[in-house]
């Protein structure tokens, strides 16, 4: 009898091309997603060494980081120029490199354009049991459909383009099991914020995290993508959620997903991937779903999480001296005093979007809160950025765009936007943003910006009250 294996071990084993004597493995990569920021130097490297792309059929390029979220076409349907010359140059490089190397390319004005981690699953390009890489750490996202997906640097992008493989050491395995039912107002984002607060920003370093338990199984694919997206915020290069009926229902009929007899063969294979009974993980963390509240960050690390009903912690309350120092620095940057109730923190900016929270379910959750309400006067800037052109179209078909604009929020074109502020969408220095993105790092949303990570429903609640707010108060 073969040894019981975890989901991670099964996917890993199925992708070993070669094992070196020192244990390093040459791993085959099934899907390579490419965007404009981390690829130009890789294409330049290929050109300089006279190399080609080994498997253009397994590679998909889409621009997302630099694109403005304002109109991309004029009234006549012509593409508008990109004002920032550096952004324009990066976008132009991808537009030129993709056809030159024979790669599938979704143009900035194509209806399918969007954030690469929204587009992959949406197009059925990302599939369970595949290895997926992209020069972006939030590639972990695709683990939500059961793919072994992780971010890589530009040297690795070039390596995958040239060889369709990577040289890797196997990771350790970690199970994060969330059992029970979450309460009202608690979303997938709150689940992953709570997990990150529990395990810490380095809790998963060296590991691939498999999320298990009834609370994870109960999540939609959108919710699972949100959870796995932030595996990297807990230090794990990849997250995984075993494919099940929810996954199959989501993928069936998508453009790049298998069809007919191929679909049946794929389903049989995907069902064989679940972690075997008796398989062991290197580490297990168990969380009771009932303990998870709508959550919010107070500091500049994604591990700085408290329930919305909580207060800003006192740095002295941390046992670790280096965490005490870090917390004091964070609070100075964030302009917060220990003991302040999170619900008393006033907010000037709202960002609903990013690869973490820009799918249709996120748009619906935010719209449900702002419906019939108005943006608070002290909120100066509130933007809703759908994750893709298809999400945007679906939201508009459901009338969600009108709900947002009636409430005084702006409805934008798809892209990464204010998550990392490479495009013109920035939070001004010294101002706060209730943001559905994934990182609250110093300067992340623009120099001097102060980020509070929240769910889409919580961001919507902050938009209408002008302060961090327990969304449950607006749900009655």
């Amino acid at each position, binding site marked *: 009898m073969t040894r019981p294996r975890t989901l991670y071990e099964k996917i890993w084993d199925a992708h070993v*091309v070669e094992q*070196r004597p*020192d*244990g*390093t493995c*040459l791993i*085959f990569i099934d899907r390579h997603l490419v965007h404009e*920021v981390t690829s130009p*130097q890789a294409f330049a490297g290929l050109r300089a*060494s006279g190399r080609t792309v*080994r498997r253009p*059929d*397994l590679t998909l390029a889409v621009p997302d980081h630099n694109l403005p979220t304002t109109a991309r076409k004029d009234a006549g349907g012509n593409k508008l120029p990109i004002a*920032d010359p*550096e*952004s324009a*140059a*990066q976008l132009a490089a991808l537009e030129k490199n993709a056809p030159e190397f024979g790669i599938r390319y979704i143009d900035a004005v194509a209806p399918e354009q969007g954030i690469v981690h929204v587009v992959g699953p949406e197009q059925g*390009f990302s*599939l369970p049991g595949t290895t997926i890489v992209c*020069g*972006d*750490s939030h590639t972990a996202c695709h683990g939500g459909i059961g793919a072994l997906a992780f*971010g*890589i*640097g*530009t*040297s*690795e992008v*070039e*390596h995958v383009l*040239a*060889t*369709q*493989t990577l*040289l890797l*050491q196997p990771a350790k395995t970690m199970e994060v099991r969330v059992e029970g039912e979450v309460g009202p107002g608690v979303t997938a984002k709150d689940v992953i914020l709570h997990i990150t607060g529990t395990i810490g*920003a*380095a809790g998963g*370093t060296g590991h691939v995290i498999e999320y298990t338990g009834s609370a994870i199984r109960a999540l939609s694919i959108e919710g699972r993508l949100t959870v796995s997206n932030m595996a*990297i915020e807990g*230090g794990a*290069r990849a997250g995984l959620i075993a494919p099940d009926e929810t996954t199959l229902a989501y993928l069936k009929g998508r*453009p*790049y997903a*298998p069809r007919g007899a*191929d*679909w049946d*063969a*794929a389903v049989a294979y995907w069902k064989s991937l679940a972690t075997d009974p008796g398989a062991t993980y290197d580490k297990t963390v168990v969380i009771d779903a009932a303990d998870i509240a709508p959550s919010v960050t107070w500091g500049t690390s994604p*591990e700085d999480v408290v329930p919305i009903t909580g207060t800003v912690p006192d740095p002295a309350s941390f046992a670790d001296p280096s965490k005490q*120092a*870090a917390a004091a620095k964070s609070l100075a940057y964030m302009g917060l005093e220990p003991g302040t109730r999170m619900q008393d923190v006033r907010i000037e900016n709202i960002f609903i979007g990013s690869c973490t929270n820009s799918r249709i379910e996120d748009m619906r959750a935010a719209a449900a809160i702002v419906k019939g309400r108005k943006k608070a006067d002290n909120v100066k800037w509130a933007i809703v950025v759908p994750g893709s052109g298809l999400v945007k179209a679906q939201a508009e078909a459901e009338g969600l765009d009108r709900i947002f604009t009636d409430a005084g929020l702006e409805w934008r074109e798809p892209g990464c936007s204010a998550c*990392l502020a*490479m495009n013109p969408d920035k939070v001004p220095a010294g101002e706060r943003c209730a943001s559905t993105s994934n*990182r609250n*790092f*110093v*300067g*992340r949303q623009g120099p001097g910006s102060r980020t509070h990570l929240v769910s889409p429903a919580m961001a919507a609640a902050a938009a209408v009250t002008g302060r961090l707010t327990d969304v449950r108060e607006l749900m009655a």
Partner: protein
Amino acid sequence: MTPIEKVEGRAIPLGLKNVDTDVIIPAHWLKTTSREGMGKGAFETLRADPDNLFDSAEYKGAPILIAGDNFGCGSSREHAAWALGDLGIRVVIAPSYSDIFSGNAVKNGILPVVLPQAAIDRLMEVAQTDPVHVDLDTQTVTTPFQDRFVFEIDPFRKMCLLEGLDEISLTEKSDAAIGAYEAKLDAERPWMRPAA
């Protein structure tokens, strides 16, 4: 990539934990199509302080950086490694690193040394006044005061760093094995190819 074996010099005693890639190189420095000149943007927010370590007479151009847990967490941007390299840093010493950063560092000839916090604390003390010596071949960090700390490193990474190896050329030697894998995959799981 430049091979690395022995590095001796001043070590910047940064010491902070969770130094993320946005701190190492803010996103607006990523709008480039080259790998060059990234040192100007390295640690921009910290260097806005006129009394920062990086630009001080004592530590300017120092080849070693000492940091706390989880150095390089966050983004996969290799620009973080390019920025450190352009700043002149060849070795980082910390209790732990993000997985993506440590891989990026090695691919750019930067050695990520892992040592326990107690050793970091001692090196932070030495770094205030004296140089630190790092030897990859013997896997040791030593000081002029008889301190000697041994570190572990993955043997493949060690070889890549010592030889300044180009991984793509190495992998190209496995071309036949990759071809065989692709043929087997097409036979056993043909549905793995994108349908459209």
